[in-house]
């Protein structure tokens, strides 16, 4: 079963080192069946703009380098120190419904605060 996880690294080079350790051939092509998307320094806060499109405040970018992996099987434990969890909307995912469902369920187990429970059932 494919499993989806999100990671962040202190720099692009440390991410690249970790990714390459999964296996590459002499041409730099991956020798594994995992799918990797390098999101880079993601936007944490959108910029603001006036009505003419001129920037008022610039977007705030993450200092960390973000990487999403669709693992072909269980995630590598070597990557656990870089794993991140977040609310499941407004982010990047892979188009595998079963993998998204597993990731969302795991996220809820570890971070129930991202899944608000209704305070009171309305009659």
């Amino acid at each position: 079963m494919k499993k989806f996880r999100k990671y962040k690294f202190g720099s692009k080079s440390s991410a690249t080192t970790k990714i390459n350790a999964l296996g590459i051939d002499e041409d730099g092509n991956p020798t594994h069946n995992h799918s990797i998307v390098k999101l880079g320094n993601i936007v944490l806060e959108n910029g603001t703009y006036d009505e003419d499109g001129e920037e008022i405040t610039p977007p705030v970018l993450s200092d960390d380098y973000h990487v999403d992996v669709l693992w072909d099987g269980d995630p590598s434990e070597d990557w656990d120190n870089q794993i991140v969890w977040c609310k499941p909307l407004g982010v990047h995912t892979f188009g595998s419904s079963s993998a998204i469902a597993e990731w969302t369920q795991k996220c809820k187990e570890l971070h129930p605060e991202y899944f608000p429970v209704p305070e009171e059932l309305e009659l």
Partner: protein
Amino acid sequence: MSTYNKASLILIPSGTKTSKIYSQKPINGDGDFTFSRSTMATRVNESGLIEKETQNLLLQSNSFDTTWNSDDGLTGGQSGYDGSNDAWLFTLATNPAIVRQANTSGGVQTYSVYAKGNTNNGIRLYAFGSSNCYAFFDLNAGTVESNQNLIDATIEDKGNGWYRCAITFNQTNTQLYMYLSNNQNLNASSGSILIQDAQLEQGLAARDYIETTTSAVYGGITDNVPRLDYTDATCPSLLLEPTRTNLMTHSEFTNVLNNVTLSYVESPEGLNNAMRLTETTSNSQHYATIENALVTSGVKYSISFFIKKGTHDQVRLYTQSSTINFSLRFTFSSETLEIFGTDAETGSENFVDYGNGWYRISANGTANSTGTVDIYATTKSLGSYTGSTSDYTDYYGFQIEEGSYPTSYIPTYGTSVTRNADYVDIPQSSYNINNSFSIHLDFGITKKIEGVSTNIYSLITNEDLNFQLYTNSSGNDGLNVYLKNQGGYVFGSNPNDGWGNTASKICVTYNANTGRLAYFINGSLYNEQTSILSFGTHSTAYITPSANNLMEIKKYLFFESALTDQEAINLTTI
């Protein structure tokens, strides 16, 4: 003997199942190709409609006494909407009467159930989560009553008193409920209704019901399902595409409306999930903001969307100029597409007729800064004018992807989504390459990234023979054939024409007696060379679009003999 009879392997894509593409020859299955793509995708099906993954994300979708929680009466074996005896009598025992299931799905989704009045005539569908969304349905009048935090609520008459009730919303779920209600927007204090076949799915519309038991079920173009694509054709092609991400977090939905109203009309999917933007009468700009994509300064993106003429003949769409200064103007009557903006790539603009008045428009733009970019979909333009409530334009399927050409539509419902590359593996048992051979490939439309040479077809024996087709590294068009034997190149062609925006047919023949290797394209001998090859033991063959290419395969033939020049010419003549 016809040329086709000589082939040991014939693949004309027409029959598939998950992870498999059936060959016409051999018929014992040895020549069937294996296929993989570890994500969902979309295609244009034989009806000319866009087809997506289907799903039911609920468990035990019609076994309400299992997995679902309820303190009320649930009695199966009732007469259903579909002629079955699979419906359930839902009877109040405690007030309020509830049947519910935990769920963690997120984004734009539709929750539906079939229901029929009994001693009560109402049902309330409630999706608890980050927004808490619900609607009351009157099963006597067949109407949607009060609702909260929904994108849409629908009730569809299924006959014999049955209705399919559905709510569409955008949130992360915690629980999905059905309440027994009366028809006055209140939970009922007594009575019963009939329920059957609950479903939760991504998107704006309730599609055909899929039964589930202990896990969610995915169908349609889901993981590892090959795509026979009928875009602009009556005969299908096997569509192979590279990995691409639709960076737009919402490709079919917005709630950011600027002096327009939003309703839903039939899309290129054949469902009511296209946006109809209708002007208000204010004297101002009339547009919807489609949110949003994260882009990186200096990177080229392909921007695409579907549009259908409403009342304006000329319509213009814009991107947020602070990130990508870009706009496209399409004139329906003359099918004229114009591109504007300092970040727009003139000449990249293109459109494809999807039928029923829908066009897919695309063009390239390069981000001038790093950040998020919105799309501004207008009814006419961003100019200010007094609108009319009878003026509208329809939109669907917004996509921004890194690259110089658009790939097939990738739907998104609250997150950006990556569709992984398609990969075809040709079984070793389907070819015997230790003597004369011929290979024929009939390609439809193909695309690549300029300046990049990548392998699209390989046939490799254990280090002795390595036959590969590469895209040419320069320009948009061109294909190179390489053949390496025992470590050294024995054949290499210059890039040819005919590869790119037009279909092309190639054939490579090798005669082991004479050592003649010949390369034919589109009905002509393009290049030839003489070299005696050493084969070794064959090991693998595969076709892949790799990271950069898109291609359609209409036909693949392998011959364990050298075709004559005339046979090769006949096969490759367009």
